[in-house]
C-alpha cells in the first residue's frame, strides 16, 4: 500500500532526468507535454522507468487522460492500490 505523497516523491525522481536544462521546477501542476516536452518516444522511456520503479504495468488506455504530474501520480496511486 503506497500513499500519494510517497508516490509523488518517487515520481519527481523519475521525472528529474526529463527536466534536463529546461529550468522547470517540478510540481504537481507541471504539464508533462507542455513543460517537460515529452513526445511519444520520451513517453515510452518514462513509462518504462515508472513500470520498473513501481513494479506495475501501466495500461495504455490511461495515457490520454494524463496531462499533469498530479494526474499521473493519482493514476499510479489507483493502479498500485
Amino acid at each position, binding site marked *: 500500500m503506497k500513499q500519494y505523497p510517497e508516490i509523488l516523491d518517487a515520481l519527481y525522481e523519475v521525472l528529474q532526468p526529463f527536466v534536463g536544462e529546461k529550468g522547470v521546477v517540478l510540481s504537481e501542476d507541471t504539464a508533462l507535454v507542455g513543460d517537460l*516536452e515529452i513526445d511519444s518516444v520520451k513517453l515510452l522511456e518514462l513509462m518504462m522507468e515508472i513500470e520498473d520503479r513501481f513494479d506495475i504495468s501501466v495500461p495504455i488506455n490511461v495515457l*490520454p487522460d494524463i496531462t499533469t504530474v498530479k494526474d499521473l501520480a493519482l493514476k499510479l496511486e489507483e493502479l498500485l492500490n
Partner: protein
Amino acid sequence: MDLDTTPTTNTLPFRAADFSNLAEALDYAAQGVTGCNFYTGRGQLYAVISYERLRQEARTLARRFAGMGLERGARVALVAETHPDFLRYFFACQYAGLVPVPLPIPISLGGHQAYVEQLRAMLESCKAAVAIASTGFLPFLREATQSLDLRFVGNPGQFERLPESDCPLQPLQSEELAYIQYTSGSTRFPRGVMITQETVMSNLAGIIRHGVKMGPGDRCVSWLPFYHDMGFVGLVLVPVTSQVSVDYLGTRDFAMRPRQWLNLISRTRATISFGPPFGYELVERCLRPEEAARLDLSAWRVAGVGAEMIRPEPLRRFAEVLAPSGFDPRAFLACYGMAECSLAISFAPLSRGLAVDTIDADHLAKYKEARPVPDGGADKDLSPRTRSFVICGKPLPDFEVEIRDEQGRPLGERQSGVIHLRGPSVMSGYFGEPEITRQTLSEDGWLNTGDVGYRLGEELVITGRQKDLIIINGRNIWPQDLEYLAEQQPEVRTGDALAFSAPGPDGEETTVMVVQCREKDPAVQASLVSRLKQRVRSELGIDCYVELVPLHTLPRTSSGKLSRSKARQNFIETHDWHAPSVVAGDN
C-alpha cells in the same frame, strides 16, 4: 496454468494463400496445430490461441452477429489492440458476412479529446453499425459514438451476452470486401481503403510465394500494430493464410523494451519478422554487445524493412551490434508497399541484404535523373553531393509498374517520376469518397501511389513522396492535421500554415511547420511557437520545428494554391540542418 506456445512444425500440407476468401483460409489452418501466441512486455506468454480454437470462437461470435440481423457487408469497427480478441472479432466478421474496420490506438499523453474525435471521424466515415473495444478503451468509444446511431457499442463481455442465431453462416465471398483499412488517412479527414477478399488474397499469395518464399518450418514474430497495414496484413493475415505460428508482442511493450523483440525471436527461433527502420534503430540504440552474445538469431532469415524511407546506416549498425548473436545481415529484406495495394508492392531478392544505389543528388534535383556516382562517392573531393538509396526490389509478378513524369508520360530507367501501378491487389477505392478515389485510381485500374522513384533494371528505388505525407517513426502524419492545429490559434488564419518534413541534422525525417504571423511582438511570437509545439506533441506525439514567417511569404503553385513542396524546398535551401544549433536553439 502453464501455457505452451503453438508449435512451428505443422501437421498439415502447406498452402500459400490459394483460398477464395479469408474464412476459407482459417478453415484450412484450423485443421493443423499452429496458431498465435501473445506475450507481455516482460516476455511472459499470456495467451495462446491455435487456429483451430480461433475458428471455433470466431464462428460462435459470428452466430451472435447473425442474430443481430445486420445487413450483409455492414461495418464492424474494432479498436485494434494486440490481443486475441481482435483476431476473434475480425474472423467473426468474416464468417458472419460483415466488414471489419480496425481502429487505431493512441500513444500520447493528454490526447483524450483528439482521440475521441479521430474515432468519431472514422466511425462516421465507414458508417459503422457496430463498434467494439476492450473495457479499457470502451469509454473513448462511447464518447465517440454519443451522437451516432450504432446498433451496438460495447466490450467483448457485453457482446458475448447476445444470443447466438442458428442460421447457417454465410462468410464473405471473394468479390466482397475483406476489410476497410484506415492506415492512410489523416486523423481529421480519414480515408478508408477498401480491400476485397480476392484483392488481399492475391497480395498474400504474392508475399508468401514470391516476396518471402514461406514454407513449412517458418515462424513469425511481430510487435507491429494490428491497425497498421504491415502489422495487420503482413503479420496477421500472412500467418493465417500460410498456416504458420506467430508470436505477438504489444507495440507499446516493444517500444518500451525493444530488446524483447529480439529475445522473442531468439526464444522461439522465429524465421521471419518485419519492422520499420525506426524499430531496428530503437533496438540498436539500447543493445549492449554482451547482450547480443546471449541471443541466438541465427534462424532469422527474413528481417523485413519497410513502411518508411530506409536509411542504410542504422541498419548496418544493427547488424554489427548483433553479429555475436548469429544475425546474418543478408537477412535484411527491403520492401515497399502501401495499404492501397493491400500491403506489398516490391521485395528485394531474398538473402541479398541491403543494396544501395548512390547517385548525384544535385543532378537528380535538377534533371530528375538518378545518375550513379562512381565508387559510391568514396572520393569526397572529386564527387558531387551524393545520396544513397536502398533498392527496394522487383514488384510482385502480378503488378504492372510505370514511372511517369508530370505530364503522365512513362519514363525510362533511372528517370525519376511518380510511381503508378496496376494489378489484382490494388484497392477498390476509398470508402464513401468517389471524388478522392477518382483522383488516385484511374478508370483502367492504374493507382497513383504518390511516391516518387526510379527503375533500376527491374527493381524500384523510392526517393521521396509526391503527396505531402509526413512519415515519422513509421507513422503516417498528414500535414493537414498539423496545419489545422495552427489554424486553431487566435494569431493564425486559414491558409497561414504549411507543414512538411525535411531531412534533419542526422538525416532523420523531421517535421516542420512554417506559419505566417501578423504579430510583431516577440513575446506573442514566442508564445505562439511554444503553444503550437505543445499542441502538436499532445495531439500527434511528435516534435515539430515551428518557424514564423512574415505575411504573404508562403509559396504558391502557378495556379495560386499554397505549395507544401515549394515550402519544403525553400526550407531545405535556407536551413543548414547540419549546424546543430538550428535545432537545439530556443525552438
